[in-house]
């Protein structure tokens, strides 16, 4: 399998207080083309920090980032910001936990879905761009895409907004989609639909996905490989099926034990 993203020894620390806070330590990740990798862990385990670092969105003055994030022959931690921007939204996209607030409230859905194309492919004319956006909205399961195109975020439900976020992230046909807890804020039934949608897009468009969640059962449905994180470090990683069968680290065992089980036969 062709490796498209190679993260080695990623270390992130903040210098806000008197003593530096280590958010991520010694994080490694190899992502193959078309692969879905899960990162699980509780809040504060550093999974979102790692994701934001890969997406190039960690940019605070009072922080130190070391290690390497290799993509397309470039180290995303050290390349020029203008070079980094050519990847953002076009080759590497990200969706977030809060679909309610992640969209701009005063811009039409269509405009927001098209924005990556507008930025990265100015050669595409307005009409084609609109058609692509409508097609993409249909692909993410919004059947009334022509109407949604002209709507504003507040007119849509949380699940629909997350679909819009996915459409906006996928419109450029990125190589990597980072999904940072994309289902946490949604209803359980909608969660399952979003997971199915990500699976479908991964298969159809060949986009590799980094799926971040604290919900091990969702990761089990979606990811072949999983990384378990605790307090900024990786405690266990491997094939999802193996880890589910025989978790080695006590933290992983507890995470698995915490999944609510529904026994219908009783």
């Amino acid at each position: 399998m062709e490796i498209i993203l190679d993260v080695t020894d990623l270390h992130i620390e903040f210098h806000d207080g008197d003593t530096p806070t280590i958010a991520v330590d010694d994080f490694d990740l190899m992502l193959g083309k078309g692969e879905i990798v899960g990162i699980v862990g509780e809040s504060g385990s550093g999974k979102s920090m790692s994701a934001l670092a890969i997406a190039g969105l960690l940019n605070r003055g009072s922080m130190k980032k070391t290690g390497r994030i290799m993509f397309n022959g470039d180290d995303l931690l050290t390349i020029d910001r203008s070079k980094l921007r050519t990847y953002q939204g076009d080759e590497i996209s990200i969706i977030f936990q809060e679909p309610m607030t992640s969209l701009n409230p005063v811009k039409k859905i269509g405009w927001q879905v098209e924005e990556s194309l507008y930025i990265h492919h100015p050669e595409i004319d307005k009409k084609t761009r609109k058609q692509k956006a409508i097609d993409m909205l249909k692909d993410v399961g919004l059947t009334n895409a022509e109407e949604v195109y002209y709507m504003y975020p507040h007119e849509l439900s949380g699940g629909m907004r997350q679909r819009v976020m996915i459409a906006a992230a996928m419109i450029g046909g990125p190589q990597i989609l980072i999904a940072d807890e994309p289902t946490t804020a949604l209803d359980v039934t909608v969660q399952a639909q979003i997971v199915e949608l990500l699976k479908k897009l991964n298969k159809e468009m060949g986009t590799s996905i980094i799926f971040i969640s604290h919900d091990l059962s969702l990761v089990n449905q979606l990811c072949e490989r999983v990384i378990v994180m605790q307090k900024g470090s990786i405690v266990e990683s491997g094939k999802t099926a193996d880890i589910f069968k025989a978790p080695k680290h006590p933290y992983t065992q507890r995470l698995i034990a915490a999944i609510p089980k529904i026994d219908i036969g009783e």
Partner: protein
Amino acid sequence: MKYIIKKFFSMIITLVVVSFCVFLAFNVIPGDPALRKLGTEASPELIAQVRHEMGLDDPLIVRYFNWFTSFIHGDMGTSYNYNVPVAGMVLNKVPITLTMAIMSFVLTILVSIPLGIFTAKYENGFIDKAITMINQIIMAIPPFFSGIIITFIFGMIFKLFTPGGFVSYTEDFGGFLRYLIFPSVAIALPKIAMTVKMLRGSLIDEAAKDYTRTAFSRGNNTNGVLYRHVLKNAMIPVITFLGMLLADMVAGSIVIEQVFSIPGISRILLSSISNRDYPVVEAIIMGVAAIVIIINLLVDIIYRIIDPRIEITD
């Protein structure tokens, strides 16, 4: 549009209430227009006679009703003091005061929006800190004082205009505008400082929101995020504020007219109040109230255009 019609009716009701309040206020405060007109030496019989001629011995409600019916028929009445129709007295002063208010408003927008964007973009930079400090000082200076300073510096030292040499718009429109620039600056200065502070804060608040991060994730640079995403959101509270400022500028120009010897609305308003010249005061206050209400209506409409979350409901 139903919304506009509804607003229009509420505007008329507001104006009626305002006009009645002015009538009531003049009934409560001491002072008699007949006495003012005749002087304290006049005999009580003469005063009683004049009061009767002016209709002042009618009950308040009757007087109000008489004024009201003629007002809606387009007759603003006759000035007690000068015995001339109010309309003629007031209407040719309106362009002076209004021009000055609009000039200071345009000046406020032209200066404060770029400055607000600049300070927010380079938050905590040297220039931001300097502007924030200067802002604090300017905000604390009342327009009449900056008016005096401006007259001194630009009128007396640089001789860019002749203090007291007001040119009427009927004689020389260019000269009229040139004279009004300086009082407009005096009115605008504290408003600029406030708007810069407001816009800066609003931009910084919006920049911390989730959609900003989404915008960056799509490959926008700082300017892209600022102008394509953040600015429109940040302008929503600022527009409300600007609406209030414009209304305030119409009222605020009254003091400045005194400082710069401009024969606008303020001079007749002040003399009419001290002479208890109700019809003139009523007419001016109705005009100011109408302007304020119309500005509010415009702000409401602009608000609805910018922010799709506000539905036009009836």
